[in-house]
């Protein structure tokens, strides 16, 4: 099938884009198009008006600003995946990119576009939630920041208003003593996750002081696994401690059954991948990041 007709506006500046979004309530943002155009080709999406932001090079950057890494929303996945700054200061994102699509899709798809699309089986939302990254939204009315944890509401639904443009993702630099890991099971490498687990740990002296465990594929959005995190904090991170946390993770989720995997299998994956993620994160922690 071919996409339904739409009106096309090409923004030449951020202000241009914001005005266009404010002018028409049916206006939607077109960034890399790797998710949106696919849906439009299947007529699962039929936006009446698209605002093309691909000329906004001022939103394509990765900058170290003090203790935070600032990533412009139009940064292409290829840029982020191969960025030495991201590799050094946010290795969880680099690890997740090993599972994201394929090169041609990564060349055009953008970090911001992927977050705003809010595909439940996508990796980056879990990465954003695991680091508590604030997201910066702009509109003709001004600018606001929202924590990643509050941004993803449901299937393809975020807290961004129709007239808002995501402009930036800010991440606190990972502490030196933090270990992270991203584990995923998908039908083929590059496919959407059946289940994915993002984990970050800080474990000075064997016991764990801070843990984030975020699951992909257990519901309509990426979820922090509070039960797993609670089981880890303060625990000694040996094999038994990790297994207990993985069990807590499995018992806390109620994943959907669908065409790709049933609930039972997804629960098993949560257990196995949480165990692997915590094991790997812990190993990296002890090595000093």
């Amino acid at each position, binding site marked *: 099938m071919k996409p339904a007709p739409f009106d*096309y506006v090409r923004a030449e500046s951020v202000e241009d884009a914001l005005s266009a979004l404010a002018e028409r309530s049916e206006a939607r943002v077109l960034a890399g*198009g*790797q998710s949106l155009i696919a849906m439009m080709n299947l007529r699962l999406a039929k936006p009446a008006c698209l605002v093309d932001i691909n000329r906004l090079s001022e939103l394509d950057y990765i900058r170290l600003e003090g203790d935070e890494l600032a990533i412009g929303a139009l940064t292409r996945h290829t840029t982020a995946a191969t960025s030495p700054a991201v590799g050094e200061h946010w290795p969880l994102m680099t690890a997740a990119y090993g599972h994201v699509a*394929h*090169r*041609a899709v990564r060349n*055009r798809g953008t970090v911001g576009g992927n977050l705003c699309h809010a595909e439940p089986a996508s990796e980056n939302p879990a990465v954003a939630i695991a680091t508590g990254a604030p997201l910066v939204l702009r509109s003709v009315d001004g600018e606001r920041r929202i924590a990643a944890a509050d941004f993803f509401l449901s299937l393809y639904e975020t807290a961004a208003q129709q007239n808002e443009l995501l402009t930036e993702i800010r991440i606190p630099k990972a502490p030196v003593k933090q270990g992270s890991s991203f584990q995923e099971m998908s039908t083929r490498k590059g496919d959407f996750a059946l289940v994915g687990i993002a984990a970050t740990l800080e474990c000075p002296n064997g016991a764990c002081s801070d843990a984030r465990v975020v699951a992909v594929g257990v519901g309509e959005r990426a979820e922090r696994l509070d039960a797993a995190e609670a089981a880890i904090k303060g625990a000694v991170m040996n094999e038994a401690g990790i297994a207990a946390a993985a069990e807590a993770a499995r018992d806390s989720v109620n994943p959907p059954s669908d065409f790709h995997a049933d609930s039972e299998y997804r629960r098993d994956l949560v257990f196995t991948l949480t165990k692997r993620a915590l094991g790997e994160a812990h190993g990296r922690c002890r090595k000093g990041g």
Partner: protein
Amino acid sequence: MESVKIALTVNGQRHERETEPRRLLSDFLREDLRLTGTHVGCEHGVCGSCTILMNGQSTRACLTFAVMADGAEITTIEGLGSVDDMHPLQAAFWEKHGLQCGFCTPGMLMTALELLRENPDASREQIREALSGNLCRCTGYQTIVDAVEAAAETMRGAGR
């Protein structure tokens, strides 16, 4: 929905056209420019048969509107080589039986071209990784990997 004027360079040749915003680059190349080497398979980005280079980077033409390619430099399979002057990749695919029906082949070649430009010493593992987004129903992939490996050797020797 108004037509939009675009100007783009395809295989070194400049084209100016008017097009509907919803016109996919894959259809624009095939139907407006009569360059039918770029194929349409799944039309949602997963099969790779529509892969071209846009500003030197592999891109799914089915996930790009032609209007987004305004001002861009596009390379399609027609720009890689010709029957009388094959690119080493094309010669290698021929010699190593890297194709049967040929439907996936242009996409495979454009993806392989990007790989070898960036990593002329790509290992078999790296070749498989790079081509993992291009599906083939005929060959079983082994001869495709053989072909890319052989082309890489030729290209290293010729300094290409």
